[in-house]
């Protein structure tokens, strides 16, 4: 037969992204935030960025590259581009088995460990529009283990736009698809006909901030955490970037603190700083206790 064939998926009437444009845009995004768009994802990048070209009235991807390089709005646009490239599914109480394991098996441990200080810190890293951070606060409320404690669930994301949505705390029906009616009435109040807002008592336990996970200096600003949720975020990073993020997580976790990843993610070949913990309902990672290093 001869001639290598590359499976492709054509689309009509849209500016095509040349191999060079792809490389320039990919490298630009990578240098900004470590997110690596794989070589075979050119057409996905093309599709996801096309609405950005349309919104800005730009004719082709070379112009878009120059816009990202030079325009006065380039920083905001780069965030919009990254957001478009990394958009992933997020809704309340997503991956219930993992959340159940966290509630039933991790929270009792954290309650016991922190009983003296009565203080709990959880980081939702790559929180997008906030559903995960609020879900974690709701789980803490449901557990009734931390009444009267100093509790904070801290959500961070690289995109200011998603953080604005997170702070607004208003959501449509698609965000509630895994939320029971009891949970809806307990943790949300209606807004208009199609939306709900997270109740103040839950919001009081949640804060948000803008953070590039690869910015080691900025990560130092995050408090020491008892648990970190970073689900389906590291899939966008290459291996060196993943290692840097895991290094930051290791530094921000207290000894014995937990790291929870998405179901398709693991630390194989990435970090030896965490130990695998087999819960009854899930596998999670934990930073080894200080006692292991004791006596030194």
């Amino acid at each position, binding site marked *: 037969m001869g001639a290598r064939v590359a499976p492709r998926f054509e689309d009509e009437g849209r500016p095509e992204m040349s191999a060079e444009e792809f490389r320039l845009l990919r490298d630009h995004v990578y240098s900004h935030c470590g997110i690596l768009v794989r070589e075979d994802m050119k057409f996905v990048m093309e599709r996801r960025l096309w609405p950005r070209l349309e919104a800005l009235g730009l004719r082709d991807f070379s112009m878009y590259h120059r816009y990202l390089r030079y325009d006065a709005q380039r920083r905001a646009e780069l965030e919009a581009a990254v957001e478009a490239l990394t958009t992933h599914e997020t809704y309340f109480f997503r991956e219930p088995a993992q959340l159940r394991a966290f509630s039933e098996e991790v929270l009792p441990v954290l309650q016991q460990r922190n009983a003296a200080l009565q203080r709990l810190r959880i980081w939702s890293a790559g929180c997008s529009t906030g559903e995960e951070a609020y879900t974690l606060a709701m789980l803490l409320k449901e557990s009734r283990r931390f009444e009267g404690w100093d509790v904070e669930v801290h959500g961070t994301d690289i995109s200011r736009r998603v953080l604005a949505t997170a702070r607004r705390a208003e959501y449509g029906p698609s965000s509630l698809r895994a939320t029971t009616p009891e949970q809806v009435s307990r943790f949300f109040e209606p807004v208009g006909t199609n*939306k709900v807002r997270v109740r103040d008592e839950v919001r009081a336990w949640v804060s948000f901030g803008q953070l590039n996970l690869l910015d080691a200096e900025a990560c130092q600003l995050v408090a020491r955490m008892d648990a970190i949720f970073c689900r389906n975020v590291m899939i966008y990073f290459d291996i060196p970037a993943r290692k840097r993020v895991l290094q930051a997580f290791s530094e921000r976790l207290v000894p014995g603190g937990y790291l929870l990843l998405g179901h398709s993610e693991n630390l194989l070949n990435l970090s*030896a700083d965490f130990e695998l913990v087999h819960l009854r309902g899930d596998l999670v990672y934990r930073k080894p206790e200080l006692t292991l290093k004791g006596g030194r």
Partner: protein
Amino acid sequence: MSQVLAFQEEERYQAVLGLDPADTGTLDALIAGLHDESWRVRRASAESLRRLPSLAEVASRLVAVLGERGETGARNAAAEALVGLGDPAVGPLLRLLRHADPDQRKFAADILGQLGRRSAESALIEALEDPDLNVRVSAVEALGRVGSEAAARALESLLKEPDPLLRLAVLEALIQLHWPPPLPGVVPLLADPQLRRSAYRVMGLIPQVAATELISRGLASEVRSIREAALGALGTQASVADGALRAEIDSQARNALKRLPDAVEFVSQAFEAEDVPVRAGALVAAGALREPSLAVAVAEAAREDRLLAEVIRTLSRLGPEAGRELLGRMAELSLPARAAAAQAMLEMVDPSYVPALSALLEWAEDDLRAVAVKALGRTQSPEAVAPLVALLDEPALAGAAVRALGVLSGGCREAVLAALEKVMEGQPSPAALAAFAHAGGTTALPALRRLARAADPLLRAAALDAAMDVDPAVGLELARGALVDEAAPVRAAGARAVGRVGDTSAGTLLKRALQDEDIAVQLAAVDALGECGAAERVPELEALVGHPDGALAGRAVRALARIGIVRAEVLREAARHEDAEVVKAALQAGAVSAEGVALAVQLLSHSGWDVRATAARVLGDSGGRESLEAVRSALSAEQDALARRALSDAVERLSRR
């Protein structure tokens, strides 16, 4: 006891991390670490080895560890470390590939495959003739990762080998390489239950009607596993097919599926498959069946990014009934499915969609709302006017709403105009003003003149932009005042307006804007001068070519090119700019001149791959045969794949001159 062990393990782990790469004993210590009982210590040792100064020595020591029988953990750690070493590991592994022990040769082939270096290809091709079957299989698998055309051709010839394990490995390697072998070599393999699945997948890579016929025959099979394998092939073939073959695929798939009594159920279940090609095949099959009840499953297939375009194509083939089904169940769909469904709906909308699209505007994500806005414009329904006008104050969607109202005014102009006139009576936003000018045309001019004097500078700028759209003469009149406005956005709008009219007075009008304190105004003036061909401002533009701001310098180069005056020394100055975009602009500006061609030859050795590729293109377009040697020489030294491609094209074109 376990506490003590854990304590000791941590100590050993920390000790490995603390080793100084410059110390003479570190290599021995790390090699010993590869033999540790703890995987953490072995892993840390393997990773630390790549930081040592003499990687060639490290590679030789690691290869020696591979020969230690009974030390499985150490051998695996050494293999991992060799992969981490990269290029320095290749030489010792190529030597290992000629070792007397077949186990060692297999190890070498496996690791070379993981290293993925093209320099190992010819040795791996030779290993395809190794007397040991396991080595041959490993070489096949390695070539599946690193192979080029030569490897693919060598693999093809092995399809006739008697051993099924080897043939299976060859099929999988060809799949990895996206290399379609000749169809007659694949057909006999369909009869072998062990090979059938892979053989179908390979057949999917063959863009021929004869392959489509065999795949369709498989689709109609009574054996479920054959049907599933054929579905995967169908998905692959559809993704590599051109228009004519694609139509043939759809037609043959429809005929084959018609013969299946449980076709809809079969396709519906195929959407749950792990295998992406099978899901791709399910999409092709769903489109061929035109079955609206599959709409949700089709939309959800968009969760796999690579299937997005096929999902949209399939949804648009399912018809309006499917569109309404999707719209009604939007909140239940996953985010990618919602985005795909919304995109597909653009092709299906009619006035009945307005209520559901309006509801979507209330709760959906901004990207999805933007598609809903576009869809509302296409409904051509007066009912769509109010929700769109309401969005004109919302910054994220105002631009999309302006465009949608523009589309809508093609079918129901009166309704659009009436709604916008009402808005204009109050405090209009810049977006509302733009929409009003678009729908109202010259009747909007009195309002635009009034708003060009508004207190809000953004409104003044928008009024000027809109006036230019409606009546350039009025626009130019307003632009003269705008150029001395105290607000930068208005001055920039003034410069843009002058550029659009292309008046001969542009050079005089834009002189001040060119020296504006605000860079956005300067940029607009530079662009405008280029558009007008204002030759009298060439000296000022030339002065900007060396500006440290790459945007200003690059646009000055482009403006000069549009005016048609690019002096050789200006080109050279631009080519020395730190910003690669300016250098590329210089190459493009000089493309047709002798100076530009000479510059392109020089820039073939620039540090930026994109500059080298642009230089190659310029030479391919405008160079003479005398450039050929320089381009050939650059090609022989070029390491970057994209620059190599541009240089190869240039060599080919120049050779024909």
